[in-house]
């Protein structure tokens, strides 16, 4: 359990959450007391479109979030009549902000921002700037509480007590909301825009059940934020859930335990508190059953499914392969999870695909504090096709190099030599395994060539979901007519104009089949197929192997399955490379 807290990124998150516990706990009590709970929740959500805008337009995210939160706060303050209608105004603006953020994130800026991360936070993204912002929020909150705390208390109790010389209640509220906005922005990276409230309000409300005096309430709130934050962080690393969500769950559980404890007989408060803390600790320990050690085997990280397969073939029982991407996940839009980082922590070697396909691997390795060597296999393969010059994943070469078995051979040789250096004791085993596998790769290459070449060249016209099969087509003499997503990355989007041009091309070229990819949604491909009369029955494995038990579970069977599917598509189902099922 404690090793988790030794990972550099978890430590950063830990420092962040412990510093945040001061402003979050203190502000939580003021927010509850001043009746601004819903309002402050809305401030967090309002920051969301600001984050998206900052991300899309390329200025500092905290600036965008803070500006949006302030605009929202001022807007609602102006809109609200002092008593009724405030909640309605807040709810309206809140829904608007959430919708605007989602639309901006998905339609205007496309792939630029990951909505889930913005809404629920990510431990992996916490950096020194966030920690500095949290410290600033903590200091500002402490100073403001010392100077204005008694006035907030008084104004909440009885606005009428203020004489003309006292701080104006509106000024007091504005300062409080300003602080909430600042602390919210500081907390955005780690808990996300939607669940900031969990960090600010739930612990304060829980602590309120246990005490009826301000000072002890505030101390208890700060303590609860720290405790629930740490437990939530740890849980988030263990479960790969976003930290905002796990902290919210832990805080909610804490509240339920305390409230239930009070409902069941009027237990002494200390007993209730002890029970609550005990339950939280149990929750932690209960989930602490983590994987055991690997019995002295060499730890190796592979980013993609096909590289994981190569590594397992070569390393055999001598290595433990930690493969980051799972079957049918799309590497182009992958966001590393905490477990990927903890997996990399003990690794000696990291095999990457390169060419910007898995550029996130560098961050994973540095966050893990590991000094593993990263082997970029894309950099050493012999057959190269040009990549895209623009877009989110521009690279010199097309990253889908493994679809040419000659490149796979080179990659396997590189893996063998890297393993032999890292674990010389098993050099002979690696050589033997690699030799056997290279034989199978050559047989695969010859078999596919023979099968594909049995189709007349003018029938070998390929239309797929995205441009993932350049190497395959190049190797076996297939003409690529078009792609649903006219790009080597799945992150691009096809416009209506692109699609209608594609449909025209398909009809003009007499293409008989469109091939959906297993890791992408087949909807668009199917729609075009039904529009043009082509079939969309044959699925290809583009960016990822298939799951266990599918015909694409290994590299060898995947390439064979692709060849089989293509030949069946080209010949209208007449022929294949395998007996039909």
């Amino acid at each position, binding site marked *: 359990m404690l090793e988790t807290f030794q990972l550099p990124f978890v430590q950063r998150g830990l420092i962040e959450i412990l510093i945040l516990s001061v402003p979050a706990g203190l502000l939580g009590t003021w927010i509850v007391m001043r009746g601004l709970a819903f309002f402050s929740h809305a401030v967090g959500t309002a920051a969301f479109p600001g984050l998206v805008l900052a991300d899309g337009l390329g200025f500092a995210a905290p600036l965008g979030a803070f500006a949006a939160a302030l605009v929202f706060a001022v807007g609602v303050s102006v809109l609200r009549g002092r008593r009724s209608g405030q909640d309605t105004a807040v709810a309206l603006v809140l829904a608007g902000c959430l919708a605007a953020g989602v639309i901006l994130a998905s339609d205007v800026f496309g792939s630029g921002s990951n909505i889930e991360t913005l809404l629920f936070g990510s431990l992996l993204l916490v950096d020194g700037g966030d920690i500095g912002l949290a410290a600033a929020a903590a200091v500002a909150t402490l100073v403001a509480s010392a100077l204005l705390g008694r*006035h907030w208390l008084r104004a909440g109790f009885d606005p009428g007590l203020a*004489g003309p010389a006292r701080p104006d209640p509106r000024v007091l509220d504005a300062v409080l909301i300003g602080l909430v906005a600042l602390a919210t922005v500081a907390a955005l990276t780690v808990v996300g825009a939607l669940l900031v409230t969990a960090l600010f309000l739930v612990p304060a409300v829980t602590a309120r059940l246990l005490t009826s005096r301000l000072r002890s*309430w505030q101390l208890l709130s700060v303590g609860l934020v720290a405790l629930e934050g740490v437990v939530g962080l740890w849980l988030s690393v263990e479960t790969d859930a976003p930290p905002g969500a796990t902290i919210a769950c832990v805080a909610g559980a804490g509240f339920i335990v305390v409230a239930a404890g009070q409902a069941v007989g009027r237990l002494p408060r200390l007993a209730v508190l002890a029970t609550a803390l005990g339950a939280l600790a149990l929750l932690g320990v209960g989930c602490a059953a983590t994987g055991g050690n690997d019995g002295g085997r060499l730890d190796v990280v592979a980013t993609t499914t096909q590289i994981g397969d190569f590594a397992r073939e070569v390393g055999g029982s001598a290595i433990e392969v930690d493969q980051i991407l799972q079957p049918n996940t799309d590497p182009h839009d992958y966001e590393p999870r905490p477990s990927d980082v903890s997996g990399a922590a003990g690794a000696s070697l990291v095999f990457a695909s390169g060419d910007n396909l898995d550029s996130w691997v560098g961050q994973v390795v540095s966050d893990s504090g590991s000094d593993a060597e990263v082997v970029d296999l894309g950099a050493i393969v012999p057959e190269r096709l040009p990549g895209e010059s623009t877009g989110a994943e521009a690279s010199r070469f097309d990253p889908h190099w493994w679809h040419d078995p000659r490149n796979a051979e080179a990659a396997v040789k590189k893996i063998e030599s890297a393993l032999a250096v890292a674990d010389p004791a098993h050099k002979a085993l690696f050589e033997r395994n690699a030799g056997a596998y290279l034989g199978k790769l050559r047989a695969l290459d010859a078999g596919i060539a023979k099968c594909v070449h049995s189709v007349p060249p003018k029938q070998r016209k390929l239309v797929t979901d995205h441009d993932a099969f350049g190497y395959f087509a190049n190797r076996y003499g297939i003409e690529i007519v078009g792609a649903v997503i006219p790009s080597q990355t799945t992150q691009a989007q096809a416009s209506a104009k692109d699609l209608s041009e594609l449909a025209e091309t398909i009809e003009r070229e007499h293409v008989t089949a469109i091939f959906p990819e297993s890791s992408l949604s087949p909807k668009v491909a199917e729609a075009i197929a039904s529009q043009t009369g082509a079939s969309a029955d044959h699925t290809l494995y583009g960016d990822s192997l298939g799951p266990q038990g599918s015909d694409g579970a290994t590299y060898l069977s995947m390439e064979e399955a692709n060849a089989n599917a293509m030949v069946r598509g080209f010949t209208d189902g007449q022929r294949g490379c395998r007996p039909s099922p």
Partner: protein
Amino acid sequence: MQAEPLIEASGLAVGYGGEAAISGVSFALRPGETMALLGPNGGGKTTLLRALLGELSPLAGTLRVGARCASVPQTERSQLDYPVSALDVAAMGALSRLPWWRRPGRRDREIAADSLRQVGLDGLADETFGKLSGGQRQRVLIARSLVQDARILLLDEPFSGLDRPSSERLEALVGSLAAEGRGVMVATHDLEQAQRWDSVLCLNRDQIAVGPPQRALDVDVLEATYGGAIVELPGSGRRAVLPPHHHHHPH
């Protein structure tokens, strides 16, 4: 020779957004005087109190408030759940005397404790405010106005919801505070009790009457004040006002 008045209003008009809610208000409150503020809901009682506290500025006429004013408001539901003790509430009074950046010290806590003793609550200083009875809460708020060192006390319907013993104790306290030279203004619906104060001010958007209750209160005045919602109690000849069921602050 009478003492200088604590409050002097002449032709006063006050309102919201430039529109007068009350007008033609002229009266004086002297040290030691208790004054009942009578009027229907929406008649402008709260507006007048807010003007005296300095929250609203006169639209016309003059208003001179010659001493520190403290308000004793009705308890709102939100206050019952507030994390403060009786002593905390009383000590809030010190904030009105201190500059905003100064925090109340030990001396101010002692003054607050003394004030609670003065209103007969010395044993309940550490009790949570919301746990006190209605009459006790009123007395805590009065203690707070003593901590404010206010010479003018403005009580907004302090007797509503109190039982008879609590009500009598509060009335005696108000009397003794006035005897020490303070001016007390009590907004009330209780016409019978109003007859026991030194003077009454009848307000229904305009000032209807002001003066000692025996002189100022007659059927015409009460009809003008309450708009006919007034009944003669059979046999006794006593006048009563039909009690309103809902209390609305004009906003």
